[in-house]
């Protein structure tokens, strides 16, 4: 079947206007498949953190777009990302989401074995392939490895296509948010810790990504949760110490002015962040002993610079959001045009007090769990948007707020915190990476 968009650069490009995008970006299944083939192949996709695979043979099974992959520690100093598919019949090689495979992957179907770099190690009853030119077969090449893998200070990204920019070029100055998160450890190292929250969303994955820099919704959509928290806390007897949970909820219902003045920074290739000058994480209580550890590690000036950075949400295009000040990373995993799995991961700052992880873990629970009263209202809004887009009354979504005529030409800009510039930035990157191999 010939679709509307496959191979049609012009039709795809026409979906993104300067201040509007077409609803097909959210509802069209063909376009979704093209996103998986083009956008998720030409960009660097987050796979996992190397602390998830500390020992040789450790693996973590995940997905890039819709494709199953394995991140494996192939050697002390080498992490590979392999397609999670036996080259024989296609069987997925791992059952568990993580574990240690020893020195080989062994397919549970016919016991073909593979070295940790994916190469074929053995086939039972191999005589059956003699004289069949087996060595020239695709299967004999072993498990297909994802071609481009980059481990940036523990964060492993992969790019499937040879097209598209290199790692440093793709992320550019946006890496400063990851750097700040990592530098918050006195020894400059993070570990995945605290468990993962997995929340199923019946909406398009991009709605979640756009919402990360949407600063005009918290005081509306989260009035019911954060606003109630503030109200309930008012009844506490004077002089009661404000609990960590109220410190976390409260800032969600900050004023428009708070969000306007926090600023948004927009980077190339769809990356950007809210909270240039301050954020909802700025006023958390100090954790005893932590600042002293940071000063001992970095010196006072540098420690203050690291901790003075309070970026709110950093979007790593296409599908990751990072909160450096609380060491939290969310992955928006696309499953279908109207289905997204949200995974929210947290990290321990190695060498820092446990109370920091405790706060991070609490934040994750209060905001990102399937049982979160903040998450409930966000998901309700996304699902209503997904339903509303079925209307033929208007096929366009508006992203015009604080539009600047020449903004597509401008680089690494800081702007008003309530601007939709970063969303427009994401859509420009969307067009670029959807069409660059066409």
């Amino acid at each position, binding site marked *: 079947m010939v679709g509307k968009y496959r191979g049609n650069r012009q039709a795809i490009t026409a979906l993104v206007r300067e201040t509007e995008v077409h609803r097909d970006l959210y509802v069209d299944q063909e376009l979704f498949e093209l996103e998986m083939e083009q956008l998720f192949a030409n960009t660097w996709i987050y796979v996992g953190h190397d602390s998830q695979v500390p020992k040789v043979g450790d693996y973590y099974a995940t997905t890039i777009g819709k494709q199953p992959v394995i991140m494996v520690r192939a050697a002390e100093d080498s992490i590979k990302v392999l397609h999670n598919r036996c080259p024989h019949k296609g069987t997925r090689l791992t059952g568990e989401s993580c574990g240690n495979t020893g020195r080989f992957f062994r397919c549970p179907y016919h016991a073909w074995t593979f070295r940790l770099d994916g190469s074929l190690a053995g086939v039972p009853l191999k005589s059956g392939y003699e004289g069949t030119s087996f060595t020239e077969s695709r299967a004999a090449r072993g498990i297909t490895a994802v071609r481009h893998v980059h481990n940036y200070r523990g964060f492993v990204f992969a790019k499937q296509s040879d097209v598209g920019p290199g790692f440093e070029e793709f992320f550019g100055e946006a890496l400063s948010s990851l750097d700040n998160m990592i530098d918050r450890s006195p020894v400059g190292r993070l570990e995945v810790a605290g468990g993962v929250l997995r929340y199923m969303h019946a909406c398009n994955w991009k709605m979640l990504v756009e919402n990360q820099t949407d600063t005009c919704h918290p005081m509306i959509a989260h009035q019911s949760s954060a606003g*109630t928290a503030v109200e309930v806390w008012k009844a506490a007897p004077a002089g009661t110490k404000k609990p960590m949970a109220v410190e976390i909820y409260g800032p969600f219902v900050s004023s428009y002015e708070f969000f306007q003045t926090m600023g948004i920074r927009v980077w190339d290739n769809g990356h950007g962040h809210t909270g240039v000058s301050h954020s909802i994480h700025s006023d958390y209580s100090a954790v005893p002993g932590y600042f002293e550890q940071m000063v001992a590690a970095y010196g006072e000036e540098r420690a203050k610079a690291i901790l003075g950075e309070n970026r709110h949400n950093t979007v790593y295009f296409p599908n990751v959001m990072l909160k450096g000040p609380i060491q939290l990373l969310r992955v928006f995993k696309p499953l279908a045009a109207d289905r997204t799995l949200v995974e929210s991961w947290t990290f321990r700052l190695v060498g820092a007090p446990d109370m920091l992880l405790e706060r991070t873990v609490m934040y994750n629970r209060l905001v990102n769990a399937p049982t979160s009263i903040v998450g409930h209202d966000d998901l309700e809004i996304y699902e209503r948007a997904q339903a509303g887009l079925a209307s033929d009354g208007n096929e366009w979504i508006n992203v015009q707020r604080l539009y600047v005529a020449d903004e597509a030409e401008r680089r690494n800009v800081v702007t008003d915190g309530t601007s939709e510039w970063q969303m427009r930035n994401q859509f420009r990157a969307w067009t670029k990476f959807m069409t660059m191999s066409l």
Partner: protein
Amino acid sequence: MTPTDQQLIDFVVREARLLDQQRLEDWLELFTDDGHYWMPVEWGQSDPRLTTSLMYEDKLLLKIRIDRLKGRATYSQSPKSRCHHVLQQPQVDERDEEQRHYVTWTPLHYVESRGDQQTLYAAWATHHLTLVDDALRIRLKRVDLVNCDAALGSIQLFV
């Protein structure tokens, strides 16, 4: 007073009934002042502090949750959710009269519905009960979903 096994069982059954009838203020009164509601996210999870959970809420957080359910701007409750518990007979696992500490274990099925959607969950509830002024109160209600680590949709009421 020393509660009989039957009184412990009746307490757990009534607790579920208050949830089903959404008498949530009455339900909250069943907790001690330092009581917690805990729904782990990991199988066999032992720590609620440095490992996240689906819920780990003290009375303040539970009150916020209950007040929010009544709010007019609570979009995810328009339309409102309903819930339904089916309990297996609770079993009394521990009795410590000196410490006034009683533990029950209750397998259950829980249904939450909203609009045209209805979702079934299976769980075990572990109640850690005590006596306050001769009345049974919850120190800890732990709810272990059989699929606690699955990718779940919204659970908006209380299992």
